[in-house]
């Protein structure tokens, strides 16, 4: 039976079927196909949920190895496993609306995530410090445009109100046109990649290597 799942042709046929299931209802109005596609998406989402168990298993295995081999930072893995087990247990037994689960999220998960997000500002600053060295004409333009937009966006706007029209011009014209250019190029690349996949030219994402093609 395994030959069926390993067969390139079968994988490709499944891929084409799912592509048409997504492609046809977008461009052509067929209510019956819409219903079928919704059910298909629901099945895919349900199957996807089962992979959570595999992820938990993977994390347990890795953490246990860290603890067993006393690798650097192994003590944090005890904390991780305890918290993961606690959240899983409370989530399964009491539900995600229970006070205990809500407390875990509000007191531990959200503050830690917020701290990690807040650090982003420092990373931005250090990257900008390196990038904003006007070593060439292009870099000089970048520095000038960057400073104008930065002063407009930052709370200092009140002090530099005269900068606003320049910043808005840069954002609405250069920024917008570049953003559109990026979008067009990215979408074009995506469509061509899909064509390569559907014609069986690029199947690395299905686990097929060049030797097998």
């Amino acid at each position, binding site marked *: 039976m395994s030959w069926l799942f390993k067969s390139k042709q079968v994988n490709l046929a499944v891929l084409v079927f799912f592509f048409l299931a997504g492609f046809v209802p977008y461009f052509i109005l067929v209510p019956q196909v819409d219903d079928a596609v919704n059910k298909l998406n629901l099945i895919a989402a349900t199957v996807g949920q089962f992979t959570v168990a595999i992820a938990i298993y993977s994390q347990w295995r890795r953490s246990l190895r860290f603890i067993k081999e006393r690798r650097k930072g192994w003590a944090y893995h005890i904390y991780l496993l305890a918290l993961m087990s606690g959240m899983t247990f409370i989530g399964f037994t009491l539900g995600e609306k229970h006070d205990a689960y809500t407390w875990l999220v509000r007191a531990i998960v959200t503050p830690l995530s917020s701290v990690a997000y807040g650090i982003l500002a420092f*990373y*931005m600053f250090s990257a900008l410090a390196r990038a904003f060295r006007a070593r060439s004409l292009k870099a000089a333009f970048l520095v000038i445009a960057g400073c104008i937009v930065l002063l407009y966006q930052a709370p200092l706007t009140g002090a530099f109100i005269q900068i606003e029209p320049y910043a808005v011009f840069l954002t609405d014209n250069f920024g917008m046109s570049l953003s559109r250019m990026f979008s067009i*190029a990215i979408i074009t690349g995506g469509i061509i990649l899909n064509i390569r996949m559907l014609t069986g030219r690029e199947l690395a994402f299905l686990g097929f290597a060049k030797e097998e093609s």
Partner: protein
Amino acid sequence: MPKPLLQIPGIPSGRILGLVLVIIIAVLAIRQMRKKALPFIRRVAAIDAIDEAVGRSTEMGRPVLVSYGIGSFDYSTIAALSILGYVSRMCADTDTKLIVPTGGGHTSYLTRELAVDIVRTQYTLAGKPEMFREEDMPFLSGEQYSYTAGYIGILVREHPGAVIMTGSHASEAMNIAETSNLVGAITITAGTYVSNMAALACASDYVMLMDEQPAAGAYLSKDREQLATIRVQDIYKALAMTLTALGLILLNILGSEFFLDLLST
């Protein structure tokens, strides 16, 4: 208010032109694939740098860190998985340790399984299945910033020689790229999140811009048929640029909304 030039029953308004363009691209791509001659493709520094980055890691005895994004099964993740396959094969051939942090999103549970399968296949094909260690592909978290913290932890502990961060990364890309820079790794990034691109360009040694990432699989394969499709990307981009320029001229000089109406069809 744009007025579509054409309405066809059964096709939602505003999607007719899209359907026609997709069909044209498909026909063009298939025609290009059939051509015998190898098309000229410009060099993409960020993709060329992958070989150099892995080689450097091998020489330094340091691991290579590759991630394929935190998104679901969109084209950027698929393109990133192609790059992952290529790098894992290189690592297997050169006995370089490969670390692939996974997670970051609620759909990562699913993409992770595919990534594990791709890397395992490459090690098996290289004749070194025993070198594949699933522990080196840890699932860090389904939460974006927990994943980021775990990723940064690995960077600081393992001191990789190269970090190849592809796929769809959001704001966490900056944290990762900067830390990677800090630990002295060659940093190659790619992104499809437009607002991220400028920040990534500042923080990375090489960055794949726009359609370079979806084209990476074809570029790395050196396969004539796959390379031919990249040519179509360029033709299509040229067409888009021409239409935009013509639209701007017609609208601003002649006051005609023809292109607006055409694009609303």
